[in-house]
């Protein structure tokens, strides 16, 4: 079980969190300007790197705040 560094509560067990997937996916400001392919890419396509990955977490059973963290997907280390 991961020990996730919540910026508000400190390190807490993974079971207190909900995973939010890749961070930094920008919501299109004008969805109608996008082709179907571009919209589908925004909806469904995500990076899957081996190594550092910026991710979103929701401390649902704690402070209920969303935050981003970088984690190595191979070693599971939180990098910042």
């Amino acid at each position, binding site marked *: 079980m991961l020990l996730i560094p919540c910026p508000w509560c400190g390190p807490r*067990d993974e079971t207190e969190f909900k995973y*939010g997937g890749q961070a930094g996916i920008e919501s299109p400001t004008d969805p109608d300007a996008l082709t179907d392919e571009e919209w589908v890419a925004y*909806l469904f396509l995500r990076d899957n790197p081996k190594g550092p990955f910026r991710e979103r977490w929701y401390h*649902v059973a704690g402070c209920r705040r969303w935050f981003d963290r970088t984690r190595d997907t191979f070693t599971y280390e939180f990098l910042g």
Partner: protein
Amino acid sequence: MSRLATGGSRIDRARPITFEFDGVAYPAFVGDTLASALLANDVTVVATSIYDGRPRGIFSAGPEEPNALVGVEWPGGTTESMLRATEVELLDGLSAWPLAGRGRLEAEVAPGRFDHRHAHVEVLVIGGGASGSAAAIAAHAANPDDRVLLLDAEPESVGAPGGSGVPPSGAGIERLPATTALGVYDHGYVTAAQRHPTPRTEGRLWHIRAARIVMATGATERPIVFANDDRPGIMLASAASSYIAGYGVRPGTTAVIFTTNDTTDPVAADLATAGIALAETVDARRGEVVVDTLADDAGRLRAVRIAPLDAAGSPDEARVREVAADLLLVSGGWNPNVALWSQARGTLRFDDALQAFVPDKPGPFRALEATGRAAGVIAGIGMVALTWIVPPLTGDDWSTHYVDLQRDATAADLRRALGAGLQSIEHVKRYTTIGTAADQGKTSGVVASAIAASLLGQEVGAVGVPTYRPPLIPVSFAQLAGRDRGLLLDPTRVTPIHDAHVALGAVFEDVGQWKRPRYYPKPGESMDDAVLREGSATRSAVGVMDASTLGKIDIQGPDAGVFLDRVYTNTFSSLKVGSCRYGLMCRVDGMVFDDGVTSRLADDRFHMTTTTGNAAAVLDHLEEWIQTEWPDLRVRATSVTEHWATVAVVGPRARDVVATLAPDLDVTAEGFPFMTWRDAVVAGIAGRVFRISFSGELAYELNVPSWYGRSLWEAVLAAGAPHGITPYGTEAMHVLRAEKGYPIIGQETDGTTTPQDLGMDGLVSKKKDFIGRRSQRRPDSVRPDRKQLVGLLPVDPDALLPEGAQLVALDADLTRVPVPMLGHVTSSYRSAALGRTFALAMIKGGRDRIGERLLAPMVGGGTIEVEVTGSVVFDPENRRRDGELNEHGQPAT
């Protein structure tokens, strides 16, 4: 009797006890294990092997035991279906029985007490031997403020000779006796099982988070593989020393030692003190090996066959000799216990001097160390011979060369696996099952790797060992569950009115964690009858239901209206204070996520309702968008589900009931129209009344602070009594809403359903953006053959379609599979109002099929023919919602 007159550091000879094995009573002492006590009573055959049915004895003195599997009944009556005799600490009155390789899980819930505890420490030391004790003491000395936790698999500390090095519990070091680490997970997380932490508690599961972990897990002696190496009387050499020194037990009378190293030297000395004759020491380093064993009629070891190796390394058939012995002590070397190290993703290397895998580098959790024998420091082992397996004396029969005693897997199985072309040790493990039994291959795993390596012509280090996985030792489901079972498995949520439902004889159903009344049967009444009665009473007079479980979210802030416009498919910013609106909520993929009525309480405040089971998910959804996408919006969302008790008064007589309860409230259709709400005092309680309806009937949803929920319910029943008010449950509620074509999100929908599929285009704004809008224009979202919500009327008005039934064309050839499926039934009921059955269904291009007939093939044969209708099968004109009566005093229909 093989109990020695003196000796036995672990037993208390002043405290004799009695136990039973296989129906026979035997004496023992406090401190004995079941294994030591059996050996003390000359019980050497204690189990039968799983597939080959061979008699088996006690092979070890520790958790690595592959053979001596027993069922146990503790003195308190708790039974354990499968334990290792070497790990059962005897209690007076314990009863055990032999197993044939495996136990059978008890069908009954284990009555014993099990619990969980959590610990957070700076230093965790796994292992209570000399190295572990020293590590704990050193850690404490280095930083006295650190919390140091020591897991000791032994019940009594044997940390150092005379106990001098034993760390005291308290004062910064806590020692958990009889505790074995089960698994090491990410970020210093360790689980451990403790046996009998208190006299009344059978087991405790520890959840430990450590900043630093010291592995002092010791080493396990490994056997050598030869023909008939599994007989009772054959054991690991160090086990004999343990039984002699620890328990004052003589495990045999005449012994042969078969060794590859020097650690058997002190064993020979222990045999002498116990009066066991050492017939011969066969040292592989001197070119001699044990090639086979012989048994007596009971299958016990009777003699050992020994031969020198010839120049080619094969046993010399011409020079075999036979030595009588009832004890064969084997030592093929020592494996550091690296399973937990490996679970922590520490790397291993093969040490040529030790001929064993030893810890190399820590993994991502860097504060990981190994110490003592676990680190490969095996005192007095000397040079280790490269002898893992002794070939058959003649021929090519490897079928009694047991490698994994618990799985009855042999060298013949290994040779077959490699002959089949398998090369990876992971594949070999799965093919042969070596290492997959409850003992996880503690004595067989590395041996199997070495044999595979020699057959492959590779180095053992290159072949490696299969992945070590938790749990390190078997752990019962009861212990994993702890107290999280029965009522404590998951919280049970009940409304403030719950006790009244119980008193009315309600049958409850689970909706998420909530208990909701499903129906209220009268004596002798079936569910169908009760549901028809409740629905009929509600449509003809007045019904009442507890709607308190509905999710309620308080939305506040100057931008609340803008926020709801983005969250719902329809517009809320234009909603007037005092009004209510049904809203549909989608995910960004365009699919329906939730629905409910939201009311405007003030310019900057809305009261949102959600489906019962989805309340938490909706709040999380709102929080995500507020926090991550629209932090500029001045809006906050707070759950108030349990703040309010909600009682829905429903039916043509509802106005009379509410008028009685709230004399100051204008309840007329003109003064209090549909889809509005009012502050009101109801039954003397200040609350809110909403004129919303989930049945199509005139309805008032009375909301009061939950403390007053029960009072309100009783007041409603009293005020409604003259009108025959009838409490109804979720089942009747479902029928009433389905008659009106109101979908249940999660029943009609399944996460691939758009508002358009539900026929709710009218609720989808064309003028504003909202979550999911763009996705609803995707080509897949506008396919003409998408499943759409429709109603179904079975041609036989008494035929009830099973929910989930598939629908096919009327002329479909049911003999040609696959039969093209057109859709499925989502809800199906008997309707009191229609006097017949009906259903809702999701059907491909369904709205264009209205009037068509389809078939629902039944499991087990037969079909039900149905006619497709619109989704609203009752009062499609909504003439009943204001409850006006016609000239005959009946509701206008």
